């Protein structure tokens, strides 16, 4: 029984950790976005609604679950083999454990990856209308209709960021004028 408990604990811990993985959001950038400029467009939020995001199921859950289930099945089969099947029921117990573990692992991974998000409808200054689904990070500001925003495109990931704090007009940034010394005679 110790084996079974350990296996289940392993699955839960694996997906607990996986579920904590940070996703790009207003305040979270991927390592590969750092040090690169991004394209931005200004716009206004016209609506916001909560959405369900279906997470990516990599199959790792089924794999870990299957392995853990097989281990647990092996333990049960070796101990209780005398009455699981006739004679040695270990193989049946391992197969059953692997199948059950894979199903539980897949479900656990999917539920760890599924999450809530928001969908913004943004009208850009050109009049172009976009809908953009976003993950919501811990410190993110939920934007309301009428809010001024920038839509940032960073490596194909589009991030809706608040722009209320940005000015609408600035002086042209000054460069450095180089003055050559007067020729000496």
């Amino acid at each position, binding site marked *: 029984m110790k084996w079974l408990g350990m296996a289940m604990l392993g699955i839960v811990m694996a997906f607990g950790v996986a579920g904590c993985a940070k996703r790009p959001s207003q305040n979270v950038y991927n390592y590969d976005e750092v040090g690169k*400029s991004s394209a931005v467009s200004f716009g206004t939020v016209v609506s916001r609604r909560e959405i369900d995001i279906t997470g990516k199921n990599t199959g790792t859950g089924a794999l870990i679950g299957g392995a853990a289930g097989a281990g647990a099945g092996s333990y049960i089969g070796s101990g209780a083999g005398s009455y699981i099947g006739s004679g040695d029921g270990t193989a049946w117990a391992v197969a059953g454990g692997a199948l059950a573990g894979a199903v539980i692992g897949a479900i656990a991974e999917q539920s760890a990856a599924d999450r809530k998000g928001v969908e913004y409808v943004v009208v850009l200054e050109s009049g*172009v209308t976009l809908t953009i689904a976003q993950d919501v990070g811990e410190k993110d500001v939920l934007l309301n209709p009428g809010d001024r925003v920038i839509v940032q495109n960073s490596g*194909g990931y*589009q991030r809706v960021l608040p722009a209320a704090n940005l000015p609408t007009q600035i002086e042209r940034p000054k460069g450095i004028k180089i003055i050559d010394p007067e020729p000496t005679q």
Partner: protein
Amino acid sequence: MRSIFLAAMLLGAGMLAGCQSNVPVTAPSISPTDLATQNKTAGKYAVYIQTGGWQKDVDTDAFTCSAWTFPTDFENGYVTSAQGAFRESFQEVKFVPGTLNPADLAAQGFDGQIIVYQGAMDAKFGITPGFWTNTPNAQVAFHGIVAVVGPDGLSGQSNVKGEGAGQTTGSCFDIDDAIAAAGTNAMKSFIVNAVNTSKLNVLEMRAKGAEQAKSPTS
């Protein structure tokens, strides 16, 4: 035995050291025959081509070569190629650094503005194992929006996509060639679609304008 072990160590170190490689994507070459029509659309247009959104570290979801990452600037030559294609397709174009409002368009003598926004992009690679050789392959896709702004504001917006694939022969070390080829092909496809879509939207805008001019005003 010792030399085999040493060779394996060296190979392993080489593999790890080479886990990151910059990909040189070449600018796509677009000829007038690649476009839907070779006739230049009449009128003077301000064209804004957004840039800066398509630099990405490309990696794989698969196990083979999963330690490899390829930082890629897919925009190398994008603007130059796109500008060339727009020049081939419209009677007069001026490339501007941002969007203009309808009043500014009219004041500057433009019939309209064409905007090419960058959207999402997908880029990934894989290795197809063969009997004697492996085939590194890559797929790249660019998504964007083409908008046409006329004297009355936004006239039309359309989604545009460009997809490309590339492959080579070799190992993880050779994937950059496949990514570069896929990037160039996808960029070419994106630019061609963007220009064709722009032409269609501009023609629609002009037809709408002509219709309005014909209809009696109350």
